[in-house]
């Protein structure tokens, strides 16, 4: 596992090279979300990003997905600058992104269908994926007939079924209960382990971040968020996401990150409220 | 003069047509003003529309087909003509050049496709009348409405119709293009008499009967103005007329227009009076072709009121 301080070796799954992002705001100076930020995510690395709300985590994922063009710097994917959309990435959006005109099953099957897989096989594999996320019986429901957590899980199946080489996940387990979260976390780790996938995972749940990741990145409160923490999670793998929380090292890490994060959020709050 | 009504709304269906030339002359020469009238000329999509406006009360007087006064009797609407403007219907039956050998008379129209300006219009009835007189049924040929503008020319050019019953300027244009051969021509005295045995009133000035009763002086003034126009036309050379009408009426070709004027000059009424023979001819045209008239007793005397022309003749010397 590459350490946070070592220079990254071999091809980089994603390299943010001085990426800066600012939004134009009408009648005001632009709003700088990300101050120039450099960050490398090695292939096979599972990296979590935490930070106060509104600091720019989703924005960073949007940049990695090629949906937002950085105002400065550039994004390298496996060493090559990202030309436009990042077609190798699978992105689970923070918002609902299911197609409301397709049933859960159709939504999950769509990525396979467009890849040219016959409809019958696509449906079969999609049904299997619905089972994995605990929704085997909900295949014929339209999104508006599902609960928030169910929609999120359909979205997850939709992204994962393609088996993309880079996974961008924006609070994927937000609307799930703790138990389901663990089940989904285990599912994600199983999928990821040994496949050479890189994962960039945004969450507000620090325990989850530590339990799943190789590395936890801490962003400062915005505007002009900077990378203020880069923690190597040197816990053994394979992990059981429930049991690992009992290890003393887990608590050390948690405490270290948490105290830094707490200060950051307090600052952000004070600043924004001003 | 103390006219009952100085501002007159007048309706016409296609003002630039030579059919309505006296109206344009009266307007351009200022004859209405001389009579103390302020006339607004409303141009309608067709003669039928101007009649509807008269019935509806949005216009006071119409220059339109005499036939309308007859038709309105069957509808219980009292309409009276006071002045004849044209004495030949001006309708021409022509066949496409390549049919000229086959079709020598109306009897040969059997089974042909005939273009008319609109279904039910005077051009339609005219063609039917010719067929009936030639011993055919009214539905022995099929009739196609081709409109009255460039679309009529297009229909002939495309070869979609084999014969056409229409008016100037469509006929003039087709003749100039050498696209048709004229079979029956009621633009001339001889042609009209050959068909009807008499003249047959075309455009007239008509008003609602009760309007005439309530506004005799206004009616007189209108009659006078148009009568003056008729007299002026009777004396004018075609070139004078061409110069008098707005340039826009020239069909983009002054010489052609002058030629058309010359061809039509004889069709304008000389007296303004609709002769009884003409009234009968018009009535016969309708009764032979339209089932609706079969059982109706037409009162021809009510369709024309000659008092105003008579006075006009005295007033306008």
């Amino acid at each position: 596992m590459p350490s946070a301080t070592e220079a990254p070796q071999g091809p980089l799954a994603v390299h943010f090279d001085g990426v800066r992002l600012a939004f134009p705001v009408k009648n005001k100076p632009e709003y700088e979300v990300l101050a120039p930020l450099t960050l490398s995510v090695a292939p096979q690395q599972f990296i979590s990003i935490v930070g106060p709300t509104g600091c720019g985590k989703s924005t960073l994922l949007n940049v990695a997905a090629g949906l937002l063009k950085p105002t400065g710097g550039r994004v390298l994917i496996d060493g090559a600058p990202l030309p436009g959309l990042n077609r190798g990435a699978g992105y689970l959006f923070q918002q609902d992104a299911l197609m409301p005109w397709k049933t859960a099953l159709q939504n999950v099957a769509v990525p396979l269908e467009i890849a040219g897989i016959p409809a019958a096989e696509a449906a079969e594999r999609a049904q299997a994926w619905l089972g994995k996320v605990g929704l085997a019986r909900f295949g014929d429901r339209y999104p508006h007939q599902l609960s928030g957590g169910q929609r999120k899980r359909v979205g997850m199946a939709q992204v994962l079924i393609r088996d993309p080489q880079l996974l961008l996940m924006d609070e994927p387990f937000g609307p799930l209960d703790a138990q389901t979260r663990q089940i989904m976390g285990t599912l994600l780790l199983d999928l990821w382990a040994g496949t050479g996938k890189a994962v960039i995972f945004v969450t507000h749940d620090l325990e989850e971040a530590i339990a799943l990741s190789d590395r936890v990145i801490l962003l400062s409160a915005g505007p002009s968020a900077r990378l203020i923490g880069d923690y190597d999670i040197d816990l053994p793998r394979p992990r059981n996401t429930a049991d690992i929380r009992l290890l003393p090292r887990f608590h050390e890490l948690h405490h270290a990150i948490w105290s830094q994060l707490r200060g950051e959020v307090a600052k952000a709050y004070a600043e924004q409220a001003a | 003069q103390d006219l009952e009504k100085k501002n007159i709304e007048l309706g016409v269906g296609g003002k630039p047509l030579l059919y309505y030339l006296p109206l344009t002359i009266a307007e351009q020469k200022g004859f209405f003003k001389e009579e103390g009238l302020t006339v607004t000329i409303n141009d309608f999509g067709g003669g039928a529309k101007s009649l509807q406006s008269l019935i509806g009360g949005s216009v006071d007087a119409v220059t339109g087909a005499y036939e309308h006064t007859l038709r309105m009797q069957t509808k219980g609407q009292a309409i009276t003509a006071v002045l004849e403007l044209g004495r030949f219907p001006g309708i021409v039956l022509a066949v496409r050049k390549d049919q000229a050998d086959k079709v020598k008379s109306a009897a040969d129209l059997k089974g042909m496709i005939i273009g008319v300006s609109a279904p039910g219009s005077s051009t339609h009835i005219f063609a039917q009348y010719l067929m009936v007189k030639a011993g055919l049924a009214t539905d022995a040929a099929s009739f196609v409405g081709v409109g009255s503008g460039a679309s009529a020319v297009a229909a002939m050019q495309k070869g979609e119709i084999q014969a056409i019953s229409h008016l100037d300027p469509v006929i003039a244009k087709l003749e100039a293009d050498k696209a048709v051969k004229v079979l029956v021509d009621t633009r001339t005295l001889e042609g009209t008499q050959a068909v009807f045995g008499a003249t047959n009133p075309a455009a007239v000035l008509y008003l609602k009967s009760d309007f005439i009763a309530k506004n005799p002086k206004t009616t007189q003034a209108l009659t006078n103005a148009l009568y003056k126009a008729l007299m002026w036309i009777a004396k004018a050379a075609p070139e004078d007329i061409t110069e008098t009408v707005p340039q826009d009426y020239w069909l983009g070709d002054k010489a052609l227009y002058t030629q058309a004027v010359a061809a039509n000059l004889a069709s304008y009424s000389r007296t303004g009076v609709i002769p009884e023979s003409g009234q009968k001819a018009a009535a016969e045209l309708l009764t032979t072709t339209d089932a609706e008239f079969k059982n109706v007793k037409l009162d021809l005397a009510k369709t024309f009121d000659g008092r105003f022309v008579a006075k006009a003749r005295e007033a306008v010397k």
Partner: protein
Amino acid sequence: MKSPVSLLALQILVGLGFLTVWYLGATVPLGEVYLLPSFFFSDPVAVAQRVVRMFATGMIWRHLWVTLLETVLAFIIGAGLGISLGFWFARKPLLAAVFDPYITIANSLPRVVLAPIFMLWLGLGIWSKVALGVTLVFFIVFFNVYQGVKEVNPVILANGRLLGMNERQLLRHIYWPSALSWMFSSLHTSVGFALIGAVVGEYLGASAGLGYLIHQAEGVFDTTGVFAGMVVLASFVLMVDAIVTRVERRLLVWRPPNPS
């Protein structure tokens, strides 16, 4: 919401009220004048009799068939063109920007004036009428589909693209279903306009069709005939619209039921 039966009853009630007003207006004078003089409005009894006669003698069928054919063709071709161009332009902003003023102009040209040109190019048969209808339907559908495509939810669109959809697949899986309700809204308007195109076309020059009949009746001031023609026309447009509504229901099953 009421049951279908009582809804129908209410609809019929409204229709009867309308007919009563018409009948009274046309036959009972108010003081001196008739509210709806029968020269202009005929009266419902006469119109009904005429309609019955039209069907009894069978003369209407030929005309109805011609108009039906023209309407349906105008509707299908116009909607097809409107939908395709709407999609195409919405996906090619530069193209749309360049042609925008020309489309606005074309939309505003009075079709009646263009009739001779249609006749020159397409003859007197059904196609010149279809063309007239197409020029009406096209624009109504086009503007709506164009806007509908642009209204697509940007998150769903981004998701589709990241799931690997190419332009064609985006069209099929995202733009098309997303623009559907826009499209159908315009189709409901278009049904009427397709018919108007056909009728006006026949009105300007034809040898058959409801427009021809109406024009003929108008030429001889047969108001009853005019209204009878329009009644036939109306019942017939209700049919076409019902088909559109049925297709719409089929295609939009996924929508949440209407709130409130």
